[in-house]
C-alpha cells in the first residue's frame, strides 16, 4: 500500500509541475515496483493521469495560462495522430521511433538547460 501511495504522490507532483511526464513515472513504477504487465501498466496509468490533469488544470486556469483555442486545435491533431500512430506502429519497429525520440530529447534538453 505504501508503494502505491508513494508512486501516486511522486507521479502527481511531476504531472502537476510539468503538466506532463506522469506516464513516464507511472508505467515503469507499475511494472518494476508493482509487477503489472506492460498492457495493464499503460492502461492503468492513463486512467490515473486523467484526475491529476483535471486537478492541475484548475491551477493553470486560475493563473490564466490556458489557451482553449490552441489546446483544442492541438487535441484535434492529437486524435488524428493517435489513429495514425496505432496503424503506423504495427509496421514500423517502435525501436527506431524510440531511438529517434531519445536523440531528439537529448538535443532539446541540453539546449533548454544552457
Amino acid at each position, binding site marked *: 500500500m505504501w508503494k*502505491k*501511495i*508513494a508512486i*501516486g*504522490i*511522486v507521479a*502527481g507532483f*511531476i*504531472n*502537476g*509541475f*510539468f*503538466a506532463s*511526464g506522469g*506516464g*513516464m513515472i507511472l*508505467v515503469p513504477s*507499475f511494472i518494476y515496483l*508493482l509487477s*503489472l504487465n506492460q498492457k*495493464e501498466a499503460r*492502461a*492503468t496509468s*492513463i486512467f*490515473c493521469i*486523467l*484526475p*491529476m*490533469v*483535471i*486537478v*492541475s*488544470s484548475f491551477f493553470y486556469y*486560475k493563473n490564466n*495560462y*490556458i*489557451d*482553449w483555442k*490552441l*489546446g483544442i*486545435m*492541438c*487535441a484535434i491533431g*492529437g*486524435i*488524428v*495522430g*493517435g489513429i*495514425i*500512430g496505432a496503424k503506423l506502429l504495427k509496421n514500423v519497429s517502435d525501436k527506431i*521511433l*524510440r531511438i529517434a*525520440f531519445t536523440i531528439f*530529447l*537529448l538535443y*532539446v*534538453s*541540453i539546449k*533548454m*538547460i544552457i
Partner: protein
Amino acid sequence: MAYILIGIISGIVSGSGMGGGTILILCLSMFMGMDQHKAQATNLVFFVPTSISAILVNLKQKIIRWDVAIPVCITGMIGACIGAFISSKTAVGELKKIFGIFLLLVALFEIYKLIKEYIIDKKRHNNIINEKEEEK
C-alpha cells in the same frame, strides 16, 4: 495549422508510450515560442479528449487494475495540487530549465533501457548459437 500538425506528431508519439505530452510542450515552447507555463497548460487541454478514447477502450478490455488505480488516483491528485501550485509560482525561465533537466533524465533513462534490451537480445542470440553448436 501548425498547431494541428504539432498535435498529430504528439499523437503518434503518445501511441508508442513515450510521452506525447512532453513532445507537445517542447514543440510549443521551442518552435512556436510559447511561454513554458502556457505550453504546459495547452498539454492539459490536449490530454483530456485524447486520453478519454484510450480509457474507454481499456475499460471495455478490462485491463485497468483497480487495486492500483484507486489509491494512485487519490494520492496522485494530492501530488498534482502541490506540483501545479509550485509550478504556477515558478518563474518562466526557471521552469523551462527545470523542464530541460527533467527531459535529460528521461533521455538518459531511455538510453539505459535501450542498452539493457540490446544486451538481453544479444545474450539470447548467443544462447541460440551455442545450443545449435552443442547439437552438432
